[in-house]
Structures are given as structure tokens and as C-alpha cells.
């Protein structure tokens, strides 16, 4: 676990530190270089010139899960891929977040059948769902910003309690 779990509640100090840490986490959220299907192409578009996620400090896509903070599940997750996805998630260090990008990752989308997990939340816990098939890059960026809002509200005390 990170440092913050070891800190108790130290009043103003913790609050300020919380703010700083959460701010840094939102601004340096490195996604994992990981695409599954159609949405991955839109994720690439979001990285490219028109939408440019690098503005948020997100162009450092890490190929190794050990170094990434955010997993964007871009596309449908098949029954064969599920265990792999979970393994990758488990390999990421805390704190980590998951965005289920697109309908397939959120709820199975149009593929309501034997081969596809009906939502990636059956495999890994999801923080933000982005709708669309595939979602436009703007939608993905909106999802990321929503996640930023969520991250900004993290309290160390909660994390410490969670890790116990």
C-alpha cells in the first residue's frame, strides 16, 4: 500500500496533503496501453491530435501494468480474455482505477451471448462507465474528467480503513 494508509488523521495536514496528492493523481494518471476492440481505436483517436489526452498528462501510456494507474477497458471482454484482464488488474499497484469504455465493457452492448462478459464489472471493479458504441473521444475524455472528480474526493482515512 502507499504511504497514505500509514498516516493517521492529522487534521489540517492530512487535508492539505490529501488535496495535493489527489491533484497530482488526477494530473498524472498514466493509462495502461491496453485496447481490446473497436473502442481501442477511439481511444487511440483520443490520444491523437484532434482530442489530445496528453493535455491531462495522459500520453504516457505504460505498456507494463506495474506502472499504470488507470485501466481503460476499451471493448468487449470475452470469456477467454476475462482471466487475463483480471490478472492485469491485479498486477497494477494501488491506487488504481478502471474505466469501462463503451457499451460492451459496460453492459455487454449488442453482444448479448455466450462469449462475452455482460459488463466488465463482472471481472474487475469499475469506477466510471462511458456509454457509446464506440464512445466518441470526447465522451472518453468526459469519462476521464468524471474520474478526476471522483479521485479528488478520496480521503486518506477511507483508504486506510479499506486496506485493513
Amino acid at each position, binding site marked *: *500500500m*502507499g*504511504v*497514505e494508509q500509514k498516516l493517521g488523521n492529522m487534521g489540517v495536514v492530512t487535508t492539505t496533503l490529501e488535496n*495535493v*496528492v489527489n*491533484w*497530482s*493523481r488526477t*494530473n*498524472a*494518471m498514466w493509462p495502461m*496501453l491496453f485496447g481490446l476492440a473497436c473502442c481501442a481505436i477511439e481511444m487511440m483517436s483520443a490520444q*491523437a*491530435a484532434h482530442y*489530445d489526452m*496528453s*493535455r*491531462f*498528462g495522459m*500520453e*504516457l501510456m*505504460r*505498456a*507494463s501494468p*506495474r*506502472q499504470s*494507474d488507470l485501466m481503460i477497458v476499451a471493448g468487449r471482454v470475452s470469456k477467454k480474455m476475462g482471466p487475463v484482464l483480471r490478472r492485469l488488474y491485479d*498486477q497494477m*499497484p*494501488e*491506487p488504481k482505477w478502471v474505466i469501462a469504455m463503451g457499451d460492451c465493457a459496460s453492459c455487454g452492448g449488442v453482444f448479448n451471448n455466450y462469449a462475452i462478459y455482460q459488463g466488465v464489472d463482472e471481472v474487475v471493479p469499475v469506477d466510471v462507465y462511458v456509454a457509446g458504441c464506440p464512445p466518441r473521444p470526447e465522451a472518453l475524455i468526459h469519462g476521464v474528467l468524471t474520474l478526476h472528480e471522483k479521485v479528488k474526493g478520496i480521503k486518506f482515512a477511507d483508504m486506510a480503513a479499506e486496506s485493513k
Partner: protein
Amino acid sequence: MDWTIWLEWFLKGLILCLILLTGFAYLTLYERRALARIQIRVGPNRAGPQGLLQPIADAVKLIFKEELTPGKVYRVVFLLAPVLTVVPSLILAAVIPLGTSFTLFGREITLYVADLNVGVLYLTSIASIAVYGIVLAGWSSNNKYAMLGGIRSSAQMISYELSLGLCFVIAIIMGNSMNLNEIVNAQKDVWFAVIQPAGALVFLIVTLAEVNRAPFDMPEAEQELTAGYHAEYSGMKFALFFMAEYQKMIVISMIAATLFFGGYREFWFMTDWFGGIFSVDRFWFLGPIYLMLKVVVLLFFMIWVRATWPRIRYDRLMAFGWKVLLPLSLILAFITAVGILLTDLLGNPLIIWGVPVLSIICALVAVAFIYRDLRRKSHGRV
């Protein structure tokens, strides 16, 4: 010894480390912004004004990130490897002169940490042990990709060390000294890059290999080995590798500037302009500024190469090192030595200009060989 000397050394060392650390932090931003500009993007601009706080955000985030130590690693070496990578990159800068000297509290304070008489040798030896961190990181991670990265790194380092050493030799011959300060002062009249342009170019290419930058970023080749030697590292341990890479970039640019581009000195033809107000001999504080400008330009060169060139293949990299750069730098060293010797013997200062001409010819021949090697049986559009 006087305690003030110790204090001076300590303070200078501390300041140098701080410079390198901030330099590293802002180099990452510089690179990301410059890459973004080349790639018609904007680059990080949300953290602070124009993204100026981006490095701080990265650093704080990494500090507060969980540190994973995978179960099957060789623990001691795994923990040691990032440190072994960072330390050489920090102590490498100790012998580089940042400027002339100034007087403070009645003491003459020189702008370098250590005035080593064998400064150049010190650089080669520290640069040569800098590879251990990467190799050991690759080996200790117990990961096949990391292992391949480590193996590649060691092989690459051995192949390029020799050309690097020979480039140092060129500078030593021209400066007639192994002391970096004297080498800089020897460039008062003309930069060595002008006398030996091919040598400077070879040096720049070799430095790219030395700091594992694209197109020679074999050990971490993302598309081949995912993250290479640091695949299993997370949090601050990973940040240390990051730090080492960028600090090495800065330091090696400083070395390049010092050896071939006049170090902290101004352009040689600027010395007498406006009564010498651009000269470091007149104002000591211009030295670090000039050096910094040169470093920024050289770093941009590295970033530019990364943005445009594909990665070279691993075996071709070795072949390039052994078959092209090594003979070329040997010949260049030879040409330089003969040129200087003839100038001294015949006493005609014009003979020295034979060196740049001959060396450029050699470089062109080398380039021609490369192109000949690339020819295919036949191709054309049908």
C-alpha cells in the same frame, strides 16, 4: 584541509544535484511538450500554467503509489538496481565545468565540483559502470522481457563504449589535456565541432546509444519488450529509472557541449563583440547560461530524433556500432592526430583545416556504405 573547502564542495555538490533533479523534472515536461508540438498536439497544459506543474504532479503521484515487489524477484539486487542506475548519472556531472570562477567572501569559487586531471577518463569509467543498474534490473526481475532488455543493454553498451572512448580521444588530442576545464579553454579560438565535425556527429550518435534513447532504446523497446528492463518496477523505483535516463541525457549533453561545442564558452567569434560583453572572461555568470542553452539545443536534437526516426533493429545496432562507428571514429582520431602533428611540425596553421575536410569525406564514405548495404535486389512500382 580547511573546513571551508569541505563546505564549498558540499554546497557545490548539493547545488549540482539540485540542478540535475530539477533539470530532470523539467526535461520530462520539455520532452512531452516538444514531442507534442512536433506531433501537432498540445501536450500537458492542465497542471499549473502551461503545464509547468506537471513534473510535480508526476512526482507526487509516484511517491504516493504503491510499491510492488513481485514475489519471485532476486530481492536485494532488485532493490539495488534503481539506485545503481541513478548514482552514476548523478556523479557523472561532478567533473564538468559549468563556468569560470568568481570571488565570494574573498574566496575564489570555481564552477565545478572536482577539477580532476583525468576528467575524461573519469567520465568513461563512470559511464561504463552505469549499465549495471539496467542489466541487474533486467536480470533480477525474473521476467523474460526484462531479461531480454538487460541482455540487450549490456551488449549495446559494450559495442558503443569503444566509439565513445575514441570520441573522447579526439577531444583529448585536440585539447591536449584530459582535464575538461583545459579542453574547454582550448576551444577559445574555435570549437572542436568545427575542426572535427564528423567526430562531434559520431559522439552525438553514440551518446544516443549510451543513454538508451530512440532510435537506440533497445533495452526498453516498448513495442518489442513491452517495458523492457523496468517492466516489473513500479512507483518510486520506476521513477528512479526514469530519473536516471533523463539525468543521463542532461549530463551527456553537457559532456557533448563541453567536449565539442565550447562548453561554457560563448561562440568563438563573439568574444570581441561590443568590447567583450558576451565573453565569459568578462562576466562569469554567462558561463552557466551558455552551457544551459547548448544543453537545451542538444536535448532538442535528441527529442527530435525520437519523434521522427524508427527504432533500429537490435542486431543492426550492434553491426552499426562495430562495423561503422568504430572504424569511423578510429579513422577520425587518426586524422585528427596527424593533422595536429603536421600543423606543429610544419608550422602552417592552415593545415589544421585539412582535418574537417578529410573527416567529412570519411563520414560521407561511411554513409555511402550504409546506403549500399540497404539496397534491395530490385524494387519498383508495377
